[in-house]
């Protein structure tokens, strides 16, 4: 099975950094870039966390904080959503995990294009700064956009929406810049996976993390262009009065606008042509990483590896023909409902298989309840709930009463908010020892886990029962009484839980900082794992990752508890016995 030819990167000389700037700021080392992506994403994630507190404060205790006006509320909703989906989840799972794991798990010295990789991070940083610049514009229509993260026109660019001055433009510009960054990173991941695998690392020996990251990158490269053109066209509609998405309207706040012939539905199709694959751009790396976490810490091979791979590929392919299930009540041709409901429910089959295989991996395993494993198990349960509620929303007629209610909020937070974040936490606890050479504090980790898992479940599970419209600043206005007293109590308890869960995240940050200096020495392979990143000659791995020559792979990454072997794990670069 072993490849005969010399791997592509064997003889490539590395440009060793000479100064602090080239080592930590303009570094071409994929590991440094991964950490840069990670730190930036966490920082911007903390902003999103505070924004969620603002939202929840208003929902739980309407009017209690005077400065939370409708404008502030809608701006917080919008920025929270966009930050979480794009600038945290996508950036972390691909920019950070992708960068760190792809070369190390494949036995490569670095990404194929290290210079482009370096640029990618700095362009991402620019997109974050442009996004945040939205807060700098003063005035009644200043601040970031409050159009909701879906940015639906005509509303997004009209003055009835907060941030209509500059907020929407900085948002669109930031997205366009982010996509440039993603494309540079993404081309790297794909090329590296296809071209720079070490000897013996066949595609079907790759850890599932790589399959998930690779497939997600393919999705991103195909899906993000749709968002890119949408952002460009909407910018033009806004700045110079073109009518790509704008029909003739009569707006109370924008008298004299002369739009004609554009289509708001066209934007929605383009947005969701990106937006649905985006769900899987976040989910597939999480699927991959969690498969590896479960296998390592359960001391058992992942169950049904080949089916897991094909499920990732099938989900990735299907994710491109389900987008309009976000638009069942958007006013598109009703017959679309038949097609998109069918494709959407078909995607449930490979997804369910993945869930079965994770749980079946636990069957007759020898489960170490390490902190990464706790997060992995929490992911599976959270994802089961979020996935099952997707079957409600994906089935067109069932969606009719539920769409635009808190059922949707509960669904997408569980399935693509909390679930991938649990995997990110699990992954950080798992790979922090490799990145820094030290273990994270276990006690703080466990406290962080239990508050986060139980807390998020207590926040989002009861939300399914709130059959009230979402994106409402206030419910009981005037004669209206759609919120009952028990719903009030529920909203208050959700808000208080959100405060607690949020504070627990600062515990995690504290742990990251303190353990960097004071953590227990990790050694090369603290979890006794098989994949190549644990086989580097140094921990943390140096620039170039491997010593004189690249490792040679002889087996898949899941040889745990092989019968007749002394140890319960056999790393990928350990040769097979002669007769085997």
């Amino acid at each position, binding site marked *: 099975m072993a490849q005969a030819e010399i791997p592509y990167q064997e003889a490539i000389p590395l440009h060793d950094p000479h100064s602090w700037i080239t080592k930590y700021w303009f570094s071409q080392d994929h590991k440094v870039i991964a950490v840069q992506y990670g730190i930036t994403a966490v920082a911007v994630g903390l902003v999103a966390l505070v924004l969620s507190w603002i939202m929840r404060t208003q929902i739980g205790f309407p009017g209690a904080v005077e400065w939370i*006006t*409708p404008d502030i509320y*809608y701006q917080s909703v919008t920025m929270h959503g966009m930050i979480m989906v794009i600038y945290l989840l996508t950036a972390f799972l691909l920019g950070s995990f992708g960068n760190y794991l792809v070369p190390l798990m494949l036995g490569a010295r670095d990404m194929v294009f290290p210079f482009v990789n370096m640029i990618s991070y700095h362009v991402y940083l620019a997109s974050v700064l442009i996004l945040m610049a939205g807060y700098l514009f003063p005035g*009644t229509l200043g601040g970031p956009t409050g159009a909701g993260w879906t940015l639906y026109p005509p509303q997004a660019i009209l003055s*009835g929406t907060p941030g209509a001055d500059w907020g929407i433009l900085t948002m669109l510009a930031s997205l366009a810049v982010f996509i440039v960054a993603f494309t540079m990173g993404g081309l790297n991941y794909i090329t590296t996976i296809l071209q720079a695998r070490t000897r013996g690392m066949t595609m079907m020996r790759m850890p599932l993390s790589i399959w998930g990251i690779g497939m997600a990158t393919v999705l991103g490269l195909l899906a993000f262009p749709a968002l890119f053109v949408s952002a460009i066209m909407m910018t033009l509609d806004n700045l110079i009065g073109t009518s790509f998405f704008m*029909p003739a*309207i*009569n*707006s*109370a*706040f924008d*008298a004299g606008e002369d739009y004609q012939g554009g*289509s*708001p539905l066209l934007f929605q199709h383009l947005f969701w042509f990106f937006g649905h694959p985006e769900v899987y751009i976040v989910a597939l790396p999480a699927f991959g990483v969690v498969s590896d976490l479960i296998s390592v810490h359960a*001391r*058992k091979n992942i*169950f*049904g590896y080949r089916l897991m791979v094909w499920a990732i590929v099938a989900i990735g392919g299907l994710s491109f023909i389900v987008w309009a299930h976000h638009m069942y009540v958007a*006013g598109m041709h009703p017959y679309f409902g*038949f097609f998109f*409901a*069918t494709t959407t*429910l078909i995607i449930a089959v490979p997804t*369910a298989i993945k*869930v*079965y295989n994770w*749980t079946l991996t*636990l*069957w*007759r*395993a020898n*489960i170490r*309840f390490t902190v990464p494993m706790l997060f992995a198990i929490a992911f599976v*349960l959270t994802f*089961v*709930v979020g996935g*099952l509620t997707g*079957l409600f929303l994906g*089935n*067109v*007629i*069932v969606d*009719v*009463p539920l*769409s*635009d209610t808190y059922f949707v909020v509960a669904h997408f937070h569980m399935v693509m908010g909390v679930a991938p974040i649990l995997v990110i936490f699990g992954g950080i606890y798992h790979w922090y020892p490799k990145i820094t050479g030290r273990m994270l504090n276990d006690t703080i980790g466990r406290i962080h886990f239990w508050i986060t898992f*139980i807390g998020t479940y207590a926040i989002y*599970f*009861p939300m399914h*029962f709130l059959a*009230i419209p979402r994106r409402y*600043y*206030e419910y009981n*206005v*005037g004669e209206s*009484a*759609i919120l009952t007293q*028990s719903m009030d109590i529920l909203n208050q308890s959700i808000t208080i839980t959100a405060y607690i869960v949020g504070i627990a995240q600062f515990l995690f940050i504290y742990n990251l900082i303190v353990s960097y200096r004071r953590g227990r020495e990790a050694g090369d392979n603290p979890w006794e794992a098989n994949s190549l990143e644990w086989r580097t000659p140094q921990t943390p791995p140096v620039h170039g990752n491997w010593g004189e020559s690249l490792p040679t792979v002889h087996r898949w990454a*899941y040889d745990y*508890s092989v019968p007749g072997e002394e140890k319960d794990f056999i790393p990928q670069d350990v040769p097979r016995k002669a007769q085997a």
Partner: protein
Amino acid sequence: MAVAIFLLIIVIVSVLLSFFSPWQFTEIASNWGYIDFTVILTFWICGIVFVVIGLFMVYTTWKFRYRADARADYEPENPKLEWWLTIVTTIGVVAMLAPGLIVWNDFVNPPDDVQEVEVLSKQWGWAFRFPGEDGKFGTVHVDNIDADNSFGMNMADPNGDDDVLVQGNTLHLPVDQAYKVLLRSNDVLHDFWVPEFRAKMDAVPGMITYFWFTPTRIQDQPYEVVCAELCGRGHYTMRGWVKVDTQEDFRSWLGTQPTWADVQAATALDAMSPEAKRGREIWAAEGCNACHSLDGSAVVGPSWLNLWNTTRQLADGTTATVDEAYFVESIREPALKIVEGFSPAMIAYDEETVTEDEIQALVALLKESVDAPADAPVGP
């Protein structure tokens, strides 16, 4: 151990909450019992899967927790089990999808005896139009929309003269009559949703969308309309009411509503001063009309009808008299004094946006907005 226990608690609490939570769907008031059926069917199938997987995880995390002397099984694949699980899953999916698509087919195909009503949505309120005696809607165009013609009625189309135009957020419908709801929007996306009717659909500017339903239940309290598609800072205040009547009550209510011909006649007789007319144009141009009506209806902000010189109860317990100083303050710094029962949705307008001169015209309009037209229902 802790993991298995907590997973078990989560599964049990989730199941209990599903059956005994105080937060349920509102009582249905339309023909769409089939929609509820598909929701309940999906609930049972998904609920069973949740419990089975949850309990399986409870068992495995308890039974197979780490022991130093234990060794995990080595079982890379089990094609038979994997096929079996795939087939069972597929059956479950078909069991949800097939009935769903059948009901969707009903949902998108209105019956033959359906009547039509148009819902016109704009930031931030609702208006309604019935086709009148001839059963035909007059044509409309967005270019025709102005302060006197919020529907954009086409003057040259005789079919429009008898169209009944209902302002003020409250719609009446007769019980047991199927209605096809035609949705229009003047500005941005909106969504007409009455939770008790189950059905909803976005209104999209530039096109007409629809859904149909039959109201089946008369109750004293009108059903509340909520906008279900984010439509700007006033989205959450965009409410309305649907009153389901007997046929007789519905017909007598419809008789009190003006036709397009009536509206045109009333506008021609308008005896406003030129300054107040200028104020009315500013009212429409600056977006005051999005929240403040001149006909007594109120959703986002107080109506300007009969407002001048009245004393208003404020949310902070004090009162304020509507004079020029109060009016100016409410434009420049609207958050300072909020009238009881309203939300602080208004942004401040500085002198560049609304000049002192324009405010004078608005004051003239306010002073002359005193004669109530026939009736303008305000909520229930």
